[in-house]
């Protein structure tokens, strides 16, 4: 019988506000002994910037163990560039609760939305399951809130991504968040990048 050892790594990019015009280049991460990895990436727009440009994400590898002259993209993608609106919360959203009352409404069922907490690390992404009321709207979410979001500000354009990467031929990786693709049309966003690795087989 064989066993896999998997590790939830320290976040490659902790949850953070990335201001319009800013770039985040993650630290190089050593995967020289690892078999594979799964990146889980969260993104949300927290600005009402009109006709915004998307945020660019990339997961890179390098043919060398040191230096920054050989990074190359393995995966690169763009976030939504949809116009975002803030959501005012008037009830619910406390820890362990699965409903939250907000205005204006959210889009289609199952969309993600983002709750920007006054303490950024307590912010969270949530997924709408049901919606009732004619404004304010009572939103039922898939999972109960982890943190108290009753005083948070909601944002209606949020996304989550997952990428699996075979690390068999990779010795190091890093993650980049480019939120400066336009000098005038970038917008503030919040992002987080997590990584789970398969470390050994025995």
């Amino acid at each position: 019988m064989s066993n896999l050892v998997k590790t939830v790594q320290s976040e490659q990019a902790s949850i953070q506000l990335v201001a319009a015009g800013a770039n985040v280049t993650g630290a190089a991460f050593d995967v020289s002994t690892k078999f594979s990895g799964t990146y889980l990436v969260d993104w949300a727009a927290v600005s009402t910037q009109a006709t915004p440009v998307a945020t660019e994400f990339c997961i890179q590898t390098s043919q060398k163990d040191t230096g920054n002259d050989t990074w190359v993209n393995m995966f690169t993608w763009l976030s939504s560039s949809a116009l975002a609106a803030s959501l005012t919360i008037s009830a619910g959203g406390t820890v362990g609760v699965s409903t939250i009352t907000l205005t204006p409404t959210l889009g289609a069922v199952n969309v993600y939305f983002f709750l920007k907490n006054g303490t950024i690390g307590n912010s969270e992404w949530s997924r709408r399951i049901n919606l009732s009321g004619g404004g304010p709207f009572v939103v039922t979410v898939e999972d109960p809130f982890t943190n108290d979001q009753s005083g948070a500000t909601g944002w209606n354009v949020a996304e989550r991504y997952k990428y699996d990467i075979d690390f068999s031929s990779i010795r190091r990786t890093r993650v980049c968040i480019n939120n400066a693709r336009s000098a005038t049309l970038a917008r503030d966003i919040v992002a987080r990048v997590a990584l789970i690795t398969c470390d050994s087989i025995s």
Partner: protein
Amino acid sequence: MSITLDKVIQVDPISMQIVTAGSSVLSAEYDVSQTRVGRVFFDIANIGNGTPTPPKLEVQVSQKASGNDAWVVCLQRMPMQLQGSAGTTLGVNVFANDLFFNVTNVWTTAGYLPQRWIFFHDAVFVNSEWANVTLFASPTTTVRDPIQFNHLSTDGLVRGARYSYEVDLSSVTRMRIAVYNNSTRGVGAPLDHVVHVGLILTGAVTG
């Protein structure tokens, strides 16, 4: 019993060099009889002028343990068509460790938009380098990583690209890498390109 991976960075199969129009270059062959998987890194830049037929990038394997009569392509990629702008110079001096620089004479083409690669074609060839554009905002342009070398205003600035591919080598014993810049296919014609190829080979160790 545990399995560990032995990932070894090889000496560059094809060091950075100019592959002139009409020519090709082959790496030495690699014994991969104990190798499970490999990753090939292709860096290219068009230092010619005009619309090229992009060079073909290949990984080849052989069914025999020796000889050159049985090589076959196992991975073939034709990179994006990089419009050539030979003769275009930086126009300003650019310095090592810079992340920003001002260029006013070429930054109007789509080739230099965010996410694209550019190539500093230095008069001292070994100081040439690729850089990834993160912000195009004429005249100031930003790249992701600090520039490695000083470049003069008279040095060239052209379009480039970088690719990385994993190759399953678990059932082959020999491989080599080839770059063909010697034939016209579809639009354009071969133009001088700069090419650099890196390689990581991975074997498995049990213990």
